[in-house]
């Protein structure tokens, strides 16, 4: 069964300001879907609808055939996890305590994290070679470390769908490289991943199913090869650009013509 199905989804803040309309997309387990679009077009709004933070004006979002509005907060949190664009926190809690919050969907209302939850968190820290950060305050980590810990926290929710909102935005190129590798690694573990980016090169590097979200509020879906063309990108971003094929990498790269 398809993991995520979005049918005719529309969202407006008020009657006169529609952010997007008639959005359709589907995602299987282990698939990666990249939503590409300029800043401010509504990518984050779409993601917030997908994880239940916003209620769409029209349309339906289903997980394994069930409408997400039928889920409780806890049930949804076991299926979908989101790493928001801004994960800055106003607290000095330790990395371990921060990670343990990711186990909340598996705890009853008044339950504290158990020994098993600690062990699971430790396992992930070991897998990612981050054991030394365990007792450090989350706020004292670098941006890249914070993001990685935020992703691990989401993985502790054992989601079937992981949503990443502009994960590359604040990273330098070496961190971007690490993140791209991580995304591919997670997809191999059958986690469906949906991410947004405003840079065409990220989409070209990932080479996944793509959705182009335009300023008119429509989402055009397809494969990277079909959708990422010079004409479509120029229409999306309203600036002159060029696509150059790199034979050694078997993909295109995008340049702004200035």
């Amino acid at each position, binding site marked *: 069964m398809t993991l995520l199905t979005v049918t005719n989804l529309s969202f407006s803040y008020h009657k006169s300001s529609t952010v997007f309309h008639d959005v359709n997309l589907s995602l299987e387990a282990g698939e990666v879907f990249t939503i590409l679009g300029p800043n401010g077009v509504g990518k984050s709004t779409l993601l*917030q609808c997908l*994880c*239940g*933070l916003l209620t769409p004006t029209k349309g339906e979002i289903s997980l394994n055939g069930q409408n997400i509005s039928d889920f*409780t*907060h*806890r049930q*949804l*949190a*076991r299926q*979908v*996890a*989101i790493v*928001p664009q801004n*994960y800055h*926190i*106003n*607290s*000095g*809690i*330790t990395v371990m*305590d*921060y990670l343990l*919050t*990711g186990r*909340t*969907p598996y705890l009853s209302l*008044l339950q*504290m*994290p158990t020994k098993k939850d600690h062990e699971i968190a430790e396992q992930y820290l070991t897998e990612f070679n981050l054991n030394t950060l365990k007792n450090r*305050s989350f*706020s004292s980590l670098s941006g890249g470390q914070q993001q990685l810990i935020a992703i691990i926290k989401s993985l502790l*929710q054992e989601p079937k769908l992981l949503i990443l909102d502009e994960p590359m935005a604040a990273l330098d190129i070496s961190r971007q490289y690490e993140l791209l590798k991580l995304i591919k690694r997670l997809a191999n573990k059958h986690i469906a991943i949906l991410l947004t980016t405003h840079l065409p090169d990220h989409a070209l590097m990932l080479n996944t199913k793509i959705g182009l979200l335009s300023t008119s509020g429509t989402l055009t879906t397809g494969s990277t090869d079909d959708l990422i063309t010079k004409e479509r990108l120029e229409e999306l971003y309203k600036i002159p650009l060029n696509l150059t094929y790199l034979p050694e990498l078997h993909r295109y790269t995008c340049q702004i013509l200035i």
Partner: protein
Amino acid sequence: MSGCAFQSVFHNLLVSPDILGVSYGAAVGAASAILLGLGIWFTQLFAFICGIIAVSATLLIARIIHQRGTLIIVLAGIVVSGFMQALIGLLKYIADPDSQLQSIVYWQLGSLAKVDISSIIAVFPMLAIGAVILIFFRWHLTILSLGDQNAQTIGINVAFERLLIIGASTLLTAATVCLSGNIGWVGLVIPHISRLLVGDNTRRTLPIAGLVGALFLLIVDTLARSLSAGEIPLSILTGFIGAPLFIYILIKKKVRLN
């Protein structure tokens, strides 16, 4: 304990339990009882009820304005507190300056002199309910302090739990204020001392804040009765001690406030 809870729920370390109007509301209740010539028992009862009414008004106003997030609750609290302050001003204005005005002013400055076993027994159920709820939810307070969206996407019913915690904290605060009058700075500073001692996880800071707060007040009350022939009102001492102590904490911890 209420201070810890409020600082988590409102994601702001400068918040104190008075922020939603409970203290000024209680002062209006006490002043009304004093003006009506009712005894100490009624003063405590009116203070308790009016404290609860003030916070209920704050929450109702915030609900009517119907915006997401905690800022609107804080703004409504400022408005209600301001209104209550004006009411107190009016009550002081019409009070008999020879007797009633003094009583109102002294009530507002705070004292444990009139607290006896029967009044403690009377408020004990409220204290117990408020404290037990906050202790049970202390781990969720840590989660809520990480941000409302974050908390919701990991399975917390944020609106419900926030209301419950505000209710429990208000019950706790109203029950103590109705006995002792306004004792400032305790709700703001003690959570910070607690964090200095045991870190930022409310799982630990909340119960410690309860103990440290009680100890602090015992010390201040002893000082109040020993430093001069009469009993110095507690707010005066907590202000003189609390304000410099808070600056010391801010410098020492380089507390991240925003």
